[in-house]
């Protein structure tokens, strides 16, 4: 399984954010997307997730499921948590597990992985920022998708949760998954390659 | 008691009133037992009111 970007260009509002970006990522590999503020780290991830049109160049995922789109095989963890405050923790997770992936997945392992199992019946409105973040990380576990696109995944997480997230990411890589993470600092993956995005 | 030619309307108004008040009472009673049950569950899980730090940790 391999994700390749060939001569990618991103234009937003008439401004070229980045251009001529080349990268390739194979199963079991992680890539850190680094760069200054406004360099286009988030734009790159959103482009791979299919949320921004590709202005020029090509994106390819080979070796995945033949009839699924690239976006359909990717998880996107953005700045927002995509949680509904009136639904309970387990209802929120159940919905995204059903909608994004395999519908029969059990939720307990995913909730246990982010240490939220005791709060399963609590409405999401009661969660703190860190707990909300962890619940949206649980989504990555509950629905199986090979490519993880993580935008500042460690924000709002305490040290212990960051370690847990690093463990989850290592498990995902060991299972042949791929990770692209936009980050300013280390996220606990030793063998991650670095992709530097720089504006024109 | 003779209710005259409009007995239906009289009976209907009393029935509607009983129904509305009855559902109000049912809602209040069911709500009460539901809140009591949730409170009981939370207390069973070891959550105590106004004991953020002093309460002993039971996990």
């Amino acid at each position, binding site marked *: 399984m391999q994700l390749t970007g060939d001569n990618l260009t991103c234009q937003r509002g008439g401004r070229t954010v980045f251009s001529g970006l080349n990268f390739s990522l194979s199963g079991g590999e992680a890539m850190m997307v680094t760069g200054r503020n406004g360099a286009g780290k988030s734009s790159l991830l959103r482009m791979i997730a299919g949320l921004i049109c590709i202005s020029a160049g090509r994106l390819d995922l080979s070796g995945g499921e033949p009839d699924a789109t690239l976006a359909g095989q990717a998880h996107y963890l953005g700045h927002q948590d995509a949680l509904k*405050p*009136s639904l309970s923790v387990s209802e929120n997770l159940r919905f995204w597990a059903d909608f994004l992936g395999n519908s029969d997945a059990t939720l307990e392992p995913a909730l246990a992985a982010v*240490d939220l199992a*005791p*709060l399963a019946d*609590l*409405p999401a*409105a*009661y*969660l*703190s920022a*860190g*707990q909300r973040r962890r619940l949206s990380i649980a989504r990555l576990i509950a629905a199986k998708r090979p490519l993880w696109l993580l935008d500042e995944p460690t924000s709002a997480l*305490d040290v*212990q949760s960051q370690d847990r997230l690093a463990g989850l990411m290592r498990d995902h890589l060991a299972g042949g998954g791929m990770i692209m993470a936009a980050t300013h600092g280390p996220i606990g993956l030793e063998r991650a390659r670095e992709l530097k995005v720089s504006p024109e | *008691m*003779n*209710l*005259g*030619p*409009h*007995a239906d*309307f*009289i009976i*209907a*108004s*009393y029935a*509607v*009133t009983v129904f*509305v*008040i009855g559902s*109000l*009472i049912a*809602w*209040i*009673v069911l*709500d*009460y037992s539901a*809140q*009591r049950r*949730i*409170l009981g569950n*939370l207390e069973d*899980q070891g*959550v*105590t*009111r106004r*004991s*953020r*730090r002093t*309460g002993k*940790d039971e*996990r």
Partner: protein
Amino acid sequence: MPIIDLANPTRFLSIVNRVLPWLAAATVLVFAFGLARIMNAPDDYQQGATVKIMYLHVPAAWLSMMCWGVMTVAALGTLVWRHPLSDVAGKAAAPIGAAFTFICLITGSLWGRPTWGTYWVWDARLTSMLVLFLLYLGVLALYWTAEDPGRGSRAAAILALVGAINIPIIKFSVEYWNTLHQPASLFRRGGSAIDPSILIPLLVMAGGFTLLFFTLHFAAMRNEILRRRVRSMRLIQAQELAEART
């Protein structure tokens, strides 16, 4: 209503637990007495037996206005004195008031059919009650939409006060609108002098409705206090879990 010495919700709960059975029993007794009197009350010489609907319609109308009065006092308590129980009192009163207004509208409509030949006439009093019903629904919608109970009750308190100022103006405007258009000949309800054989059951029923209101109101306040307790305990639960991990 005693306000100062009930400041502590726990003490209020214990008082409610003690008072509620008696209040409920008194309500049932008064209603039984009132209904017995209604059975034996004479028919109106013009309206016949349909006057029996009045024993529901008129007390419900009184109560729906009294309930807004209770909400107004509670609103002052929320906004001016910041009394913890007044939030609860205001929120508990709103659905009960809406229910009484609804009863008033339905019985009015059922009374109207034999008297006017149609279920609904845009008569000044009924129309004012309809506007009051809409105001109640607005307050309920506000409570329903606000996820944070504190903010919701302050917003509803402001709406209750604005409503209290507005209700007389609405009533005046509706009466003006009604006379302006001179509707088809209306039957005037109730004369200037009501016969005691009708007045006494009416007053008894009004007393029964008032007792019913307070019974329901106290029970609903108790529910609301418990609901807030559940909320604060859940917040503590989420927080304790966060602390247990560090």
